[in-house]
């Protein structure tokens, strides 16, 4: 019996520690989310701070979003154009791209680009503030760091991601239009007719709602990761990496569930 225990112990020990660590992190994250949410409605409202974050997350992300949007739409048009040509259904290219952009591609790609550009910076900035005691300093000055640092970032990301998604939708279609109509020679009328016919408003709005959730998640995860930084420059690097990896994974995983829940509820009614 003792032998058995001796054998199991080296395996069970790290496993237990891992489970312990995971539940602790999850608990901390939940607490963090809860506290952030409870601080959001409280005064004072730091509008200037919020606008600063909105500018950083939204306005400054626009070029990269447009660039990726155009090329995603273009390559999508190229691929579907070639594939649909095999059975003479090129006129469906517009509808296919419109649907997939509105429902999936635009929200997910926008969230990933915002993660890569803005959320990594968020985690690095907050991490640096943590290791240089700036966050402690805030607290000693009787300012809640969640209220001052996290709330504006979360609100700004949650508002800006859907707006960027809308931009992505538009430029994606422009990219697809260019390749599909100008290069592949698909009829413009049929391209847009089918697009307007098959893409419903609820697909578009559903995508925006979804990207709002994405923005909320990625900003919270990145802020938490920054607040959770330990050690010096290496700690900041680690928390930045972790913020980007976890945010991206969370975007892709929650995408499935959000699609199932929100969009299913959203698309109830006679017109499917």
């Amino acid at each position: 019996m003792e032998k058995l225990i001796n054998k199991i112990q080296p395996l069970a020990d790290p496993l237990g520690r891992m489970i312990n660590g995971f539940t602790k992190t999850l608990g901390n994250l939940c607490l963090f989310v809860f506290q952030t949410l409870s601080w959001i409605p409280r005064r004072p409202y730091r509008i200037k701070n919020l606008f600063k974050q909105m500018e950083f997350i939204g306005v400054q992300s626009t070029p990269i979003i447009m660039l990726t949007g155009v090329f995603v739409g273009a390559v999508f048009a190229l691929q579907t154009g070639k594939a649909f040509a095999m059975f003479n259904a090129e006129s469906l290219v517009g509808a296919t791209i419109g649907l997939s952009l509105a429902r999936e591609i635009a929200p997910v790609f926008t969230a990933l680009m915002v993660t890569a550009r803005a959320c990594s910076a968020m985690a690095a900035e907050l991490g640096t503030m943590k290791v240089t005691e700036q966050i402690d300093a805030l607290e000693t000055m009787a300012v809640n760091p969640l209220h001052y640092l996290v709330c504006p970032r979360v609100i700004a990301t949650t508002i800006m991601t859907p707006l960027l998604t809308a931009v992505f939708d538009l430029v994606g279609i422009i990219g697809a239009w260019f390749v599909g109509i100008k290069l592949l020679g698909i009829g413009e009328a049929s391209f847009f007719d089918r697009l307007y016919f098959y893409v419903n408003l609820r697909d578009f709005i559903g995508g925006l709602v979804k990207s709002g959730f994405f923005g909320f998640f990625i900003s919270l995860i990145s802020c938490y990761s920054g607040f959770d930084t330990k050690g010096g420059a290496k700690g900041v690097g680690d928390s930045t990496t972790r913020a980007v990896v976890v945010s991206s994974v969370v975007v892709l995983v929650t995408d499935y569930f959000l699609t199932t829940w929100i969009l299913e509820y959203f698309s109830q009614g006679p017109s499917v």
Partner: protein
Amino acid sequence: MIKLIDVHKAFDGQKVLDGVNLEVPKDKIMVIVGASGVGKSVLLKHMIGLMKPDKGKIVVDGVDLSALSPLELVEIRKKFGMLFQGCALFDSLNVCDNVAFPLREHSNLSSSEIKAKVDEMLAIVGLEGICHKMPSDLSGGMKKRVALARAIILQPQIMLYDEPTTGLDPIMTESVDNLILDMQQKLDITSVVISHDIASAFRIADQIAMIDNGKIIVSGTSAEFAASNDPVVMKFIGRK
């Protein structure tokens, strides 16, 4: 003013504070000395409620910090000013905005009033005309002074200094010491200074306490401290 009663604190099972009892008298400068890494900064962070003790009480002005809600804690923190070891200036804000930060958060002053107040504080710490510089453009001593200006702008009743002289040259050390004494005389505040610089401690302290192994081993006036027969103290102050 500040009373610590049997304060315990451990990080990941490692004891840092092991039953600390200490009383900081009002309007005096208390210096807490000790070797590096014995938990001096932790002690200081307990006093302002940045950390919560595992066991024990911290009483500030007759109020038990551990019994307070986060919002009440925010209120009590307005009595404090704290100077961090690394200054902890906000590197996204320039010098003036850094100094004005507590005022903007906690007062209803107009921007011109704030401006006047900031200039006054910068004059106290002996810095003028660097209002629009960013913290990254400042030297270590200047940063310390800006941080001090920021800490005192709300006219706190208690000032906490976390290793104010560490990493400074002797001349700068002396000028910071003088600043601390100045504050004391001009503003009538209770000060707690964490230091491992014994010479500086004797220069400014009314009271000195020594922390070792998670406990306060000696606490008393500078004279009492200098006369202590505790072997750790004797070793620390270099007395045979």
